Every structure is written in C-alpha cells, then in structure tokens.
C-alpha cells in the first residue's frame, strides 16, 4: 500500500511539474538535451539527442523541439513531451543557429562553413532555397511581422536583410566587428545586433536599415576586451533588453527606450544565449564554460539560482 501511495505521489509530482514551464538546454559537448524545471530550479533529466547539439526552438504549438545537431548536419524534430525523435530536416552542412518564422512553417539555417542560409519547408521537410550570404553567417532571425529574414555574417561584418517572400537579399548594413546575434523588437521596428569584438550593441531601424544607436558596456573590474556581447532579447513592451556579455560573465540590462545600461547582473562563465519565460517574468541564460544556467527574476532583477546542466550548455528554449 505504502508503495502504491508513493507511486501516486510521484505521478502527481511529475504531472504537476509538467504543467509548469520547462526549460530546454542543448549541451554541445554532452550530445544531450537538459530538461530543467525553472520554478523548482532543478534539472529533471538529460536526454541524448545527437552529435554536437546547438541551436534549439520550440514549435509555435509547443509540440515539437527543433534541435540543430551540428556534427550530424541535420536539424532534428523531437517530441517535446516524450523526447522521441520524429524526423529530420535537411539543414545543409554544420547547422548552428536557425530561426523559425512566426507561422512555424519555414525554418532558416545558417551554414557557417559554406556562407549560406538554407530555407526549409518544415511540413515537406524540403530545402526551398540556399541563399549566398557573407562569410561565416551566425545570428539569424525572422521579424515578427514575417517581412524580414536577418542573417548576420561574423567575418563579413554584415547584417543581410532578406525578403521572406522572394528569399533574396534586399539590403546590407555594415556593423561592428564579428556580429553575433540579432533580435527584433516585438513591433518589428527595430533590430538589435551584438558585436563580439567591438563589445557593442547596435540598434538598427527596420525602415532605413541604419544604425540608430550604438551602446557599449562598462563593467567594473572587467577589462574592455572581455566584454563580448552575444545573445540579446527584448521584452514585448520594449521596456528592457537583456544582453549576454560572454566572458565578462554578466548580463546587461538595457533600458529599451532610453538605451541606457541600467544594471549588470553577475551570472555564470561565458554567458552566451538567453530566453524569456512565457510570461517574461524570468530570464534564463546558458553559461558555456561553467556548465550551468542562471535563472534571473526580472521583477527584482536578481539572479535567483544557477542550475548545473552538463558540459557546454549552448542553446536555450522554453515551453509553457
């Protein structure tokens, strides 16, 4: 009887935690996916997903995970509840970062070694087009209004503005050296781009394609060359943006209206990617070399916990 009760209790516990949001973290060197309950601040389990997993997305209906397994040259479709592999997408060589359009039917992949962006029809699992971009394309994103696909090339130092209807480049903006990540504001009016080498964050106007503001960061006790911005996210109301500062081990809080840096938060080592909770009350960071993720409460703007997840946490995605 006791055992039965325990089983019941365990099942209840599992369903309860399944109802809360779940954070998924790709572990580049463990070839695995970490599943984290961020409310409890606990690693629930680790699942093998394939060689060198990096970029990760949750499908708009929350049913699937898309994970780029770079060394297998594919993007896997994985059931978001059972973690069974459901299929593969033809991503081109060495996929790292990728983006989904708002409808979830197009997936765009950066092929770093070939200087290409691959456009994939998700339903048909077919390549529609490969677009030639600058050397070492990295950051990639689609505007929420589905007008622009942005590809950022690290060595060419360019933001490429690709028309999503024609899949052709319409404009290019020269940005600071080694641009890494790009994110649109929810209204699609601004594109925020980080530069790893210059240590800056640039805000581009989607109409003019020009840089309207360049922000640099100062962190006490950290030399300038350690400040290497990578991931950037902006909240829906465009009140605040959060920038991962790489080996400076900090996340910067930027006022998205005045462009002032309000605060820097100490997180784990070599922080690179960021994701909001669905209600945007929390922020999750992957800390590449300290093998953990940091949980940040955005109401108080404090780091509440770090959770060890495995070797080289890379990408992060959240399922409600």
């Amino acid at each position, binding site marked *: 009887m006791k055992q039965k009760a325990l089983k019941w209790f365990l099942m209840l516990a599992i369903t309860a935690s399944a109802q809360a949001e779940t954070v998924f973290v790709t572990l580049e060197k463990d070839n695995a996916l970490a599943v984290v309950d961020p409310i409890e601040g606990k690693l629930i389990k680790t699942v093998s997903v394939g060689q060198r997993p990096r970029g990760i997305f949750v499908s708009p209906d929350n049913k699937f995970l898309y994970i780029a397994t770079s060394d297998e040259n594919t993007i896997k479709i994985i059931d978001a509840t059972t973690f069974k592999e459901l299929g593969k997408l033809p991503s081109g060589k060495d996929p790292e970062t990728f983006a989904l359009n708002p409808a979830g039917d197009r997936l765009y992949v950066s092929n770093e070694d070939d200087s290409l962006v691959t456009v994939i029809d998700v339903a048909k699992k077919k390549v529609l087009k490969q677009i030639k971009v600058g050397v070492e394309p990295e950051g990639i994103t689609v505007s929420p209004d589905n007008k622009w696909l942005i590809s950022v*090339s690290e060595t060419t130092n360019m933001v490429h503005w690709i028309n999503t209807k024609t899949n052709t480049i319409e404009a290019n*903006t020269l940005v600071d*050296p080694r641009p890494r990540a790009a994110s649109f504001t929810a209204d699609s009016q601004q594109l925020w781009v980080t530069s790893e*080498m210059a240590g800056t964050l640039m805000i581009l106007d989607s109409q003019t394609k020009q840089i309207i503001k360049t922000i640099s960061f100062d962190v006490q006790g950290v030399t300038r060359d350690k400040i290497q911005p990578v991931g950037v996210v902006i909240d829906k109301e465009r009140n605040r943006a959060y920038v991962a500062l790489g080996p400076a081990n900090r996340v910067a809080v930027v006022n998205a209206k005045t462009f002032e840096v309000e605060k820097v938060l100490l997180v784990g080592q070599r922080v690179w990617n960021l994701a909001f909770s669905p209600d945007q009350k929390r922020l999750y960071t992957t800390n590449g070399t300290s093998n953990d993720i940091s949980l940040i409460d955005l109401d108080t703007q404090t780091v509440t916990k770090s959770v060890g997840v495995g070797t080289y946490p890379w990408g992060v995605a959240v399922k409600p």
Partner: protein
Amino acid sequence: MRLAKVPYSIPAIILLLTQCVNLSFTQAAPKQTINIAYLTQEQVIPAPLSNLDPFVKDKGVIGAELGIDDDNTTGEFTGQQFNLKKFIVHLDGNVVDTFTKEISPHFQYVVVNLPAQPLNQLADLPAAKPLLLFDVGTRDDALRNEECRRNVLHILPSRAMRADALAQYMMKKRWTQWFLVVGPNPEDRLYAEAIKRAAKRFGMKIVAEKAWEHTYDARRTVQSDVAVFTQTDDPYDVLVVADEKGQFGEYLDYRTWIPRPVMGTQGLIATPWHKTHEQWGAVQIQHRFLEKAGRWMEEEDYGAYLAVRAVGEAATRTQSHEPKSVKDYLFSEAFALNGYTGTPLSFRSWDNQLRQPVLLAAPRSLVAVAPIDGFLHPKTELDTLGYDQPESHCHWDK
C-alpha cells in the same frame, strides 16, 4: 584602378562623406579598388628532421589568399574590390629590385614574408616611406624596439611575447626552476634572451644553461647524448629549449636524465596559431583554410590572413584606399580585428606590434591561452605579453 572606373569614384567619395559612420548598402555601389602585394623569397629547403612533416613551401601565401577572399565578400556588399598580387622572388633574385620596380609604383599595402634584414632594407627605401608594410615573417624583438620602423607593422608575436606566455603558464604551474638549452644559431640565442627576460619578469629561475653541441641525427647517439647532456647539479622543473630551426629539440623529450617536461621551441610551444586550436570560431577558419590549401594553417598563413583582413577592415570602415586613413583607422580605438582567439586584436602604438593572445600548444592538444587568467594589466591583459609601453626601446627615428 582602370580609367573606366574613374568617373564612378566621385559619387563613391560623396557616399563616403555621407555614410562614414553609418553604412547601409541597398545596391552595388561603384567599385573602389584596393591593391595589396604579397612579397616573399624562395627558401633553401632544409634537411628533413623526419618524414612526418613535409616542408611547406608556400607558408603565408595561402593565408593572404584566404584574407583577400574574405575582404572581397565584404567588398561585394560595400562596393570595394580587393586585389592581391603575389611576388615570389627566386632564390638568387633580388627583393629590393622587385620591390622598387614592380611593387612600390603600384601598391600601397605590402604583406612581407622575409627575414629581419631584408625587411628593414625595404622599409628604409625612399619608395617605401608612404607605404604600409605588414611583416608576417619575423619575430625579432629588435625590429619592435631599437630597429623599429614607422611604416612596418608586425603581425606575428615577438619572441618576448611568446616567452612571456610560457612564463605565465609556468608560474601558474609553479614550475619555477628552468634548465635552458640553446641551439647554435643566432635566432636560438635571441630566443634564449627572450626566455631569460621572461624568467626575470615573472620570477622564474634559470638554474642551468647549456649550449647544444651534439649531433642532429636521431639514429645514432641521441639516446645517450641527451641523458648525459641533461645531467645537472641543480634540480630543475622544466627543460626549456631554444631551437627555432627544429634541429634537435624534438629529441629531448623522454630522453632526459630525470623525467622533466620540455617547453620552448619544442614540446609545449608558444604560437599565434595551432592546428589544435578550435575555440572562438577557430574551427570555421581551420576548415576553410584546410579546404583551400589541403594542409593546416601555419603561423605565417595566419599572419598574412590577419594583415590582409586588417587592410580590408580599415578600408571598409573608412571607405578609403589611402594608406594614411587606413593607418589612422588601424591605430584608432575603433579597430578591433577578429583573430579567432577570443579577444579583439589591435596594434600597439609604441612599436606597431599586433596585440594578441598567444596559444600554448602541445603537438596534439591546446594546453592554455595566454594571457593566463590572473595576470592583470590596467589597460588590456594582452599587454602583459612582450614589451609594454614603458619598456619599449622604439623611438621612431625612422
């Protein structure tokens, strides 16, 4: 610059003036041409130490080619065309002739892969004064100190930078007692001097020093030679070898009298680039180079790549092909070159040395990247390597 292009260069200048801070390109702008020369001389092929590493004849040149490819990808979008012309002077040829007749009248940027003496001979030519020479062949500290030239920028780390990188790591490991073995060549003595300077700077002690006078043939006597040679009265932690040509250094490991690791020019080496390096996007450039060259990238290739990229980066940002504006940009705060080593690269204003991390590598493993954590500097930790501003003997007389 062909004549047909001239009428288009005027709108290009207007574009430049209006967009010098904010560059967005919606259509192909008229082309501006930037010409870069690559100059080297054939070398006598040295006797092989073993069959493992074939002699690489084209060190440097393929790096420059990869750099031009990358410059032109940006150029496609910014309306600039970068051209590379290679001048490989014959073994018996005269580099000064090639320079004055074929290079200086047509090129403003020259990537030079030559030893110290001919490099400065070129730099001192009146025709070279308005040019920018990028030295990708030397590591001499003298060229960055007493013998410095305004028109020469040094891409590879100096011997002092390399020795400091090793010393920082040894300090971290607390392997403070060194036994120094010096080869017979002048460059071996220069390397040994850098090692001694680093030892003093970081509080290491050279407990013994010996000159290698034995054979360069592994088959016969090395086994007994090294064991006898490495006996000393003073205990030591590491054997430091100065053998830049690689004539005997590889024989030391596993043959010493007492078990001690080897570092210096063999064993654990200090280098700007290594095939074991894969962090910070290095995997990407390693792949691209390997695909292009069919071999690993050597440090001269890396140097030439960085030199060509530096010109490209400055020309793109300033939208100019003039050496004056390019040099101003290279020495400005804004210049931050990606060298795939985790820290932006820039030039030291006091000696024209490229400021950069130094990799510490074993043959099949990257051991550490200097500056080692904990070695602090008020401006940039990269300046803990080599001659910092107050220590520099460069006075720009020439």
